[in-house]
């Protein structure tokens, strides 16, 4: 294992190596590649935090928990709500901010405020040739040259090893509440979420569990903001959604927090056997797609635009879907299944050709997380 202490040392390491490298931060997200492990954990620390500019800059190996604790002191947060994969994957260790960015890891609030990539203001990274590259910066609006910041988010270490990231942070709202609709079918749940998301009530979470508490389906709509406003919107949404099924309202802060942590981390699948797939689709197509396979449990997030499926081991969901407007990622399965099916959905030819050529330019020797993305 290699664990460089500085960006310069990391650059030297990459330049000198002739072996493939498995780039890892906290290694909590189930990404395993062949080659020597390259641990970014020593590149840690928050280098700048300006609460009144809503900006935070941290070294890539900084623990997410450390960043969240620092933000909490100022009543702020990472609004894109990055998922913690440990419960779902049974992994241990500490998630790093570099891993969050490399995987473009987002949570339920993605539907309203955007994904990790939308909060990423700047990056520094070392490419596969050992060159230190920066892009973007630390300001909110920046169109100076090409946006490699977005390209790096979600590139899973295949274009370069992140060394530093700048993020836009947001104020934590005063209050949050959740409207729960009970007993809806998947079709009706999708309708209910759509009604909530097309309302003017600023919904920051819309999820459905096929088996929630007491194994009954439950649809959940989150609202956040100032007290009076949350109360007003909760009332309006309860009235509208009440026409679709029995409604309850959760206003206890701890309980609301637990509900959405559960959705974010897909707690419904924790400690349950089976393969886990993550499907990104047009929200209204969720019921149709869900009808194409047998699932032990389903979690719908992003108003239906994100489906988590717990299925029998070895199931090839992509084969069952055929061509559709979206993609399916195999998040948890045996090594054999991942090797056979591939973690990521193969891309259409034109896009695949461009992506391959980009990886070749940034990592000409093909040594960074080789083979992970195609």
């Amino acid at each position, binding site marked *: 294992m290699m664990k460089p202490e500085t960006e310069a040392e990391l650059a030297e390491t990459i330049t000198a190596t002739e072996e493939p490298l498995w780039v890892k931060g906290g290694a909590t997200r189930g990404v395993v590649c062949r080659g020597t492990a390259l641990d970014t954990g020593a590149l840690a620390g928050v280098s700048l935090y300006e609460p009144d500019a809503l900006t935070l800059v941290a070294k890539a190996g900084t623990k997410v928990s450390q960043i969240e604790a620092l933000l909490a002191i100022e009543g702020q947060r990472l609004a894109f709500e990055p998922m913690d994969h440990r419960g779902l994957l049974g992994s241990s260790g500490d998630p790093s901010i570099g891993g969050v960015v490399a995987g473009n890891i987002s949570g339920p609030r993605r539907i309203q405020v955007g994904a990790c990539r939308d909060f990423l203001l700047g990056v520094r990274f070392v490419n596969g040739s050992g060159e230190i590259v920066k*892009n973007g910066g630390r300001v909110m609006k920046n169109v100076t040259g090409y946006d490699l910041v977005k390209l790096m988010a*979600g590139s899973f270490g295949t274009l370069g090893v992140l060394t530093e990231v700048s993020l836009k942070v947001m104020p934590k709202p005063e209050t949050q509440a959740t409207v729960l609709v009970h007993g809806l079918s998947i079709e009706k749940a999708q309708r209910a979420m759509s009604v909530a998301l097309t309302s003017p009530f600023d919904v920051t979470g819309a999820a459905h569990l096929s088996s929630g508490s007491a194994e009954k389906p439950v649809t959940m709509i989150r609202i956040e903001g100032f007290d009076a406003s949350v109360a007003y919107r909760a009332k309006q949404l309860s009235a509208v959604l009440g026409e679709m099924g029995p409604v309850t309202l959760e206003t206890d802060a701890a309980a609301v927090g637990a509900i959405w942590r559960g959705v974010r981390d897909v707690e419904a699948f924790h400690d349950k056997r089976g393969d886990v797939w993550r499907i990104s689709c047009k929200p209204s197509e969720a019921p149709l797609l869900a009808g194409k396979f047998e699932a032990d449990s389903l979690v719908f997030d992003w108003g239906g635009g994100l489906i988590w499926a717990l299925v029998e081991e070895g199931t090839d969901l992509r084969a069952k879907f055929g061509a559709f407007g979206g993609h399916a990622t195999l998040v948890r399965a045996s090594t054999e299944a991942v090797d056979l099916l591939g973690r990521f959905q193969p891309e259409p030819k034109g896009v695949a050709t461009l992506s391959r050529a980009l990886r070749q*330019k940034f990592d000409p020797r093909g040594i960074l997380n080789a083979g992970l993305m195609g």
Partner: protein
Amino acid sequence: MEMPAPNLNVLSKKAELILRLSGVLPKDALIHEEAETRVYECDALSAYRCPPLLAVLPSTTEQVSGVLKICNELGVPIVPRGAGTSLAGGALPTADSVILGVARMNDVIEIDYDNRFVRVQSGRTNLSVTGAVEEREFFYAPDPSSQLACAIAGNIAMNSGGAHCLKYGVTTNNLLGVTMVMMDGEIVEIGGAHLDAAGLDLLGLVCGSEGQLGVVTEATLRILRKPEGARPVLVGYDSNEVAGQCVSDIIKAGVLPVAIEFMDRPCIRATEAFAKPGYPDCEALLIIEVEGAEEEIEEQLALIKEIALRHNPVELREAKDADQAARIWLGRKSAFGAMGQINDYMCLDGTIPVSQLPYVLRRITELSQEYGLAVGNVFHAGDGNMHPLILYNANTPGDLEKCEAMGADILRLCVEVGGCLTGEHGVGIEKRELMLDQYEPVDLEAQMMVKDVFDPQWLLNPAKVFPLNASAARRSAAR
């Protein structure tokens, strides 16, 4: 501003090009008479002009593909053009280029309220995207000040922002998918109605690439339900520092207004003389807008007013009705026009960390005195996106050059304090040569490698974004 000399080989192929393009385009979509090509000689950076070799106005993706394929074969540069409103010279032609205008491609292809998106042809204007979904109380969030005229194609090329970005983000945060034609004519689909990319985020890469990676012909855009209401307040202060501190305190207090606009005294005076919005005569003026349900507006405004009053404003004015709200916005919206009445102006858009606002404004005043050119500042304060307007006289020899030198100094200042050269207008030709003030050669090399992948011959909008010296080898290798 230097532009590369035209490729004589390309100029000599004009007749062949016309003949071949007429095979893939309707007759009226091919413009080659000199009197007519002159229409396309500049964009909104009108100090620079050069008629193109030809202009084409395709109306389908297939026609665009046909044009690009032919130009790729003949080695003819393409300059894509939306509505020609670029302030950075993004659509400035060279004499050996074909202008590819998407203005005829302005259809709405699909509206899907349930999934909250609209799909349009890229020549559609920004405001008319909202126009297409307004009947159901939806809107498209990015709102550049040229939104009445500017096209979605240009918005995507420049990753355009606007006054309300503080809450809703810029174009890249509201773009779900594109149909794009590559320089060799291949049509690719990137993204779609789903939310995240399957592999590398090519959509994020294309957005803001200034028409250098491909020609976007269709776009899937996120639409949002309109909030129940919105209301601005106007606050005047007798110092820029205090106004800047007020902005900081508001953001830190956890309120996130949809817009925080800032005007300084020269701008306030000019707009007052021009549009008579009834602004107080003070050093700095803030317009802060919040939105939501009535309860939410009340609650946010109460907090904002409390913070604003703590800093002893010379005036605090809350809009009581739509008419008063319109009056508060009137001056801000006519600020550019007002400055234009005084003289020619150059508008910059460097962005800085909000905390550096007072220092940067002070330095700009000093630069204004050094150069002897007046400057007015009007900008999006919440996100640090400055808009210094430098006044000059185009008819005075040397004034434009002086103005450009001063503009460059201001942009270097923005970079120096931790900001960037451009927050929403793009690099174009205007800031091309300053790129090395913000980036190391290796950083630019990484960006140019991306262009190598998408456009190996460097035919798409070639003389933009990168310093001419930095891109020279690539551009000449292609010839």
